[in-house]
């Protein structure tokens, strides 16, 4: 839990990226660095989500649900 919370706040800090605030250079010849960083940030959000699922997923919900699962009928 502590790891995921710490990573979340690190991400929140990284989101401000004031170190590139005045930089208009291009990454890969077309992507402004401020935009490239935030696109990468979006990918890192997905990675953080995956880490959260692997480490702090509330397994008790899955178990509770399995215990009272209704019968299957034409699930979408």
């Amino acid at each position, binding site marked *: 839990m502590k790891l995921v919370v710490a990573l979340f706040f690190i991400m929140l800090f990284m989101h*401000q990226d004031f170190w590139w605030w005045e930089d208009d250079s291009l990454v890969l*010849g077309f992507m402004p660095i401020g935009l490239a960083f935030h696109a990468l940030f979006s990918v890192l959000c997905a990675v953080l989500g995956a880490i959260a699922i692997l480490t702090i997923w*509330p397994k008790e919900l899955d178990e509770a649900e399995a215990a009272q699962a209704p019968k299957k009928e034409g699930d979408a």
Partner: protein
Amino acid sequence: MNAGITVLIVVVCYLSLLLCLGLFSGKLFRGTSKDYFVASHSIGPFLLLMSVFGTTMTAFALVGSTGKAFERGIGTYGLMASISGLIHAALFFVIGVRVWSHGYRQGFVTQIQLFRARFESNGIGYLLFPILVGLVIPYLLIGIIGAAKTIQPVTAGAFPKLFEHPSPLMNGGVPPWLTGLVVCAVVLTYVFAGGSRGAAWANTFQTLVFMGMGVVAFIFITNSLGGLENADKVVARVTNQGTVVQEYGVNPETKKVEKLDSPKVVGKLVHEEDIEKFAGKQPHLMREPVEVEYKKKNPMTGEVATAEKPREVGIPFITFVTYMFIPLSVGMFPHLFQHWLTAKRAKSFRLTVVAHPLCIMIVWVPCVLIGTWATGILPWGLPEAAVLSNMLRLLVDNAFLTGLLTAGILAAIMSSLDSQFLCLGTMFTNDIVLKAFGKDRFSDKQIIIIARSFIVAIVALIYTIAMFSLDANVFDLAVWSFAGFGSLTPLVILALYWKGATKAGAYSCVISSVGVWLFFFWQSGWGGEYTVMGGVQPAALSFTAGLVSMIGVSLVTKKPSEETIRKFFPDSK
């Protein structure tokens, strides 16, 4: 064939497909109120992702993002999109999964049911109902007004005798009243037929369409700009004298961008001290704010004059930081709450938590780039909402493609509208009618009829209001609606995670956060762009007011009963 007719045919084909899908999903309807409201908890991971993503993205995702980037530059992505990827995913994990679990175990189908049970108070429901409905209404208006205004210019020339308009850019185009009517009728049909399940299927189709169309528009525009490596050269530049110039123009014959013999001046920096810092730079590729005075054409008289307010390119740092309170709104969207409850199992959320930020990136990065490139080609006085369509018209000029993009914009709009209509019907039926008269008084069929009747009534009301508010600035109104929902997020987080949260605390949270929000909404002139204390988003203050008052009041008031604590915190000792 007239270009307007071609666009109209593409849009009609899209709406027909959507209608067929909606009616097909209606065949899967099991006839129970639980199926109508929450699809009998049967929606799997992919449909959940698509319906949740489609619901959170409105027309703003395509049209507004491009327009905002045209105004402020690439910082738009960090301001609105990447932070949403982080906050939305976190809230789906922290709130969505818990809410689903309580809904699944305790049979809730609305937010208000959960809050009533958690805080042992019917009153909290009667307090929240008008607030939630009041906040959803501007959001609905955004959709209908956005759709109505999108279609008229792109179908101009289609029916010049039938739909006369003084402006040649609109003459013969399908008028807003008719577009609004058709959009409402289509959405109403599939929500009527399939309820939550119909909305989930339709949302999935619509989400795929608007994601695809954004990418297609990007590819065509990039090609016309000479490829990705050339596109950034087009962006407006500041000269050593402090003027802002466009160095490129579009050749009307080839539709390709070519360097002008002499740059065209479109504005100048307001503050002389900024000249040294920005000389030779392209301010839209940075986030450092700078004020630019620019010329604007009066659409009525055709007269060109300096705009009343200078444009702020870039984003003030404090605004960037405090904007994070806006995406908190997903924690309290009633329509999203309902989508969460449709999930088949808790595990269904996993794909949404991981893929939602990536879906945002796929839609927003191309649109932000198009808006940024547009600063070097389009007149600076152009309204934000017209940037994407003008880039397509100028650089691609293909009616079929314009039709596809228009369908994409409608898809983004309608994928939110359907869920909002449905959630209002669900809330009215469950939180007001069944609460007041008792559930046993009605059969399951009657409950569905009540929900459907309310949905028809609310669609008629919203449609009428929309037709009288066509000139409202819909995007600014959207931000205020999000800010209102975001301000209420402490209520749901503390309800789910803090045993000590009390009924009195909940009341004080709602009253203080909505009170502060209302105050700033009034100060803004009921919906304009507005910040306080040098750039702070008002949502930051209304959120804080709600959080502090809920904690403070809960600490000194009567705790919930043991039975309630056991229900909501089954693992507690």
